[in-house]
């Protein structure tokens, strides 16, 4: 059920000061996202996607403009906001390399103030949901990239957040792991009505998960459309294409066999 806006961004601007001059990473971006929406923020490298997601999660302070997440400023009310959001950054890790996933998950559960009685139950339900059970006793350093990503997502979900932010979550994953990740995010969207906001260079992620796509370039929004209507922006002619399975689908089937 879609209802209230959970993310509101007005005229957001971020300027990085460098010795060689200022760099405008985000230049007057405005949008709002309702509860339960799954939105992709896409664009070429340096377009301002990651900077935007970092301002939404309270990591970076905007140069000007306004950000509200669940009605709060992520910068002024950092602790209240992070207690209600989950975030996974594909190029970074929150995991403790020498310990099994269960220990990192329990640390996150304690940090988020989950009652002691609930911690075991929550960890075991996430292990089942994200298919972590088979390697939950192995040290993180022995896991594959795909398995680590599942644990990262479990950490981000431990406190049952209302919004999940993902910055290039499928980076470096093979197609099987990518597919598992997409299925996981579809499940969160469909079963938990979770608001998902992601940045990705992988069109497959966006098609599979996101209802809506915001395209940014040079720090500005150039399109904000339902994902399945994006083609209208460029199609001048109507044409019908009949295709077999994509190469990606073929490889997934071969790997699974």
């Amino acid at each position, binding site marked *: 059920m879609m209802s209230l806006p959970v993310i509101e961004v007005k005229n957001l601007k971020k300027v*990085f*000061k460098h010795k060689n001059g200022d760099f405008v*990473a985000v230049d007057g971006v405005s949008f709002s996202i309702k509860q339960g929406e799954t939105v992709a923020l896409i664009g070429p*490298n*340096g377009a301002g*996607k*990651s*900077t935007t997601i*970092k301002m939404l*999660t*309270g*990591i*970076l*302070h905007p140069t000007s403009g306004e950000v509200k997440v669940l009605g709060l400023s992520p*910068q002024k009310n*950092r*602790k209240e906001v*992070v*207690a209600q959001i989950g*975030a996974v*950054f594909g190029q*970074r*890790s*929150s995991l*403790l*390399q*020498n*310990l099994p996933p269960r*220990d*990192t998950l*329990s*640390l*996150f559960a*304690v*940090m*988020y*103030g989950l009652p002691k009685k609930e911690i075991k139950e929550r960890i075991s339900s996430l292990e089942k949901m994200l298919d972590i059970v088979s390697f939950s006793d192995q*040290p993180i350093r022995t896991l594959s990239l795909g398995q680590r990503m599942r644990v990262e997502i479990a950490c981000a979900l431990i406190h049952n957040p209302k919004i999940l932010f993902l910055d290039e979550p499928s980076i470096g994953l093979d197609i099987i792991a990518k597919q598992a990740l997409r299925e996981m995010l579809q499940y969160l969207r469909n079963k938990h009505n979770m608001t998902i906001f992601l940045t990705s260079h992988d069109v497959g992620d966006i098609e599979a998960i996101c209802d809506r796509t915001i395209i940014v370039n040079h720090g500005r929004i150039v399109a904000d459309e339902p994902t399945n209507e994006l083609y209208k922006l460029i199609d001048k002619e109507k044409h019908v294409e009949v295709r077999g399975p994509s190469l990606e689908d073929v490889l997934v089937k071969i790997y699974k066999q």
Partner: protein
Amino acid sequence: MYKGFYFIYIIAKNSVEQKKRVIFQMANHVIFLLFSLYLYKHVYELVPGLKDKLPFANAVWSMSAYFMVFWLGVRNIERRFREDIQSGNIEMYLLRPIGYVWQKVFVVLGQGLYSFISATILSVAVSYFVVGLPEINTTFWFWILGVLIILILSQVLTCIIFVLSGLTGFWLENSEPVHFLVSKLIMIFGGAWVPVAFFPKALQLFAQFSPFGGSMAVTFTMYPNFPQQFPLLLFNILFWIIVGLLLVRFVSSRAFAKLAVNG
């Protein structure tokens, strides 16, 4: 409080998984301790008047105390800040409901915990077997209580000093020179190179009442006049802790607003 202890426990568990590292560190510790002991003994034989300033047993215990807290590794807070700022990994910590500075303090304490406990046991054992207990003008239990109070508070002060030095990284990008300066000042005025009892009088006073000496005040707890110095040492450390906390609060709010992590 519980969150902090649990954080330290999990990090300690993560670091002790590399048992060989801790064993190697402790072997280093004993070698350094025995080597320093041998040098001190030699210097005391060369300069007979030294024992009037500080008896040999007290000098040995003072040095042991320094090595003991060395392995807790609180000085590594600055390095953790620097690594996070330079790699951009700081953003992962800012997504958590505990403040970044606290997380780094817990990480460093957790990583140094087993080494500190092992080093303490070894320091006490080696010093006791080599020179017996130091001569302190008070009862044994008052001395132990005083040592514990000064040990805890001086390490709190050390944390604050290195947090402040780490926070300079938000402006300098590489806070290593600041860390070098601060750690050397702490070593000099904490009596790591030469016991403070051998310093000229004015420098002795500066060492005992500066934040740098205060952060290593545990070495002064091994001096014969520790009971007489205790109230002043305590006041000095508490004073610098309060000043330091105010500075951390002031500097950190500006530092995080300045953070720039590119895509």
